[in-house]
């Protein structure tokens, strides 16, 4: 059986792509907010990555390399679905902890956060993420899904690391308020502390 070098390269590429394809789609979906656009972005990135596969350093992190290509292609195309969002205020530090305590949700459990967050399904978390303004949301997607470091996010976004730090800091605070709002709207939590959740 003879295998051409081209087929060999494709098989090698596929074997590296397979374990990261799912996370790549999820990142694409969270960027584009649309299943069809997400699939287009992953396919386009796959072709682009394969065509530059000879620049990939064997033994290095394929996942990071591929997600970087995908993220850069998204930023070039800027194909983003619009989501109607209501402006949302930044919350105080450790907002969910304070709100959960005020609502009497902490109890004596070893992992009270999981007790609170277990009330959320994936859609509720995505709905909360959707409420972040784009600049905070993109940094959050790269942080939570890409698993990028602050430096890597700064590199892809073309902004200083300090800006990434600030966006992640503020984004995660807004996300906590959004999570609490979504939980209240969906009846997942009851009770409200003196801070309230409304802006």
């Amino acid at each position, binding site marked *: 059986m003879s295998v051409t070098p081209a087929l060999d390269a494709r098989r090698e590429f*596929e074997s590296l792509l397979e374990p990261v394809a799912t996370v790549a*789609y999820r990142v694409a979906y969270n960027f584009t907010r649309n299943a069809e656009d997400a699939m287009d972005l992953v396919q386009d990135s796959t072709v682009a990555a394969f065509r530059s596969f000879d620049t990939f350093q064997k033994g290095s992190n394929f996942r990071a390399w591929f997600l970087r290509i995908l993220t850069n292609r998204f930023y070039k195309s800027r194909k983003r679905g619009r989501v109607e969002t209501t402006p949302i205020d930044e919350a105080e530090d*450790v907002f*969910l902890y304070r709100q959960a305590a005020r609502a009497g949700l902490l109890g004596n459990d070893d992992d009270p*956060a999981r007790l609170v967050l277990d009330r959320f399904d994936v859609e509720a*978390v995505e709905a909360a993420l959707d409420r972040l303004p784009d600049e905070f949301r993109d940094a959050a997607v790269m942080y939570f899904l890409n698993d990028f470091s602050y430096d890597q996010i700064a590199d892809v976004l073309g902004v200083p690391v300090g800006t990434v730090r600030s966006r*992640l800091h503020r984004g995660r605070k807004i996300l906590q308020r959004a999570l609490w709002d979504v939980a209240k709207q969906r009846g997942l939590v009851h009770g409200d502390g003196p801070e309230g959740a409304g802006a």
Partner: protein
Amino acid sequence: MGTARRAPVPKDMSCAEVFARVQEYLDRELNPDEVEAVKAHLDYCPPCARGFVFEESVFETVRLKLAASACPEDLMARLRECLEACDES
């Protein structure tokens, strides 16, 4: 505002100052002096220590939930088709 330098590290941090650093602490993005100051506070302040554990768990849970969102079952098959077409062109 995004590029502003962080304030110097107070020797004895208040709870508010510690909470303001919780995310960077968990991300290992603080400098060694800040890490020591936060640790010193957490050692004698159980409410803040509980808040840090809670915060860490919140974002780990968010990460896990997002990583479990829907994905097309035929994703890899469709990507293989793209690669085949790419090979043939």
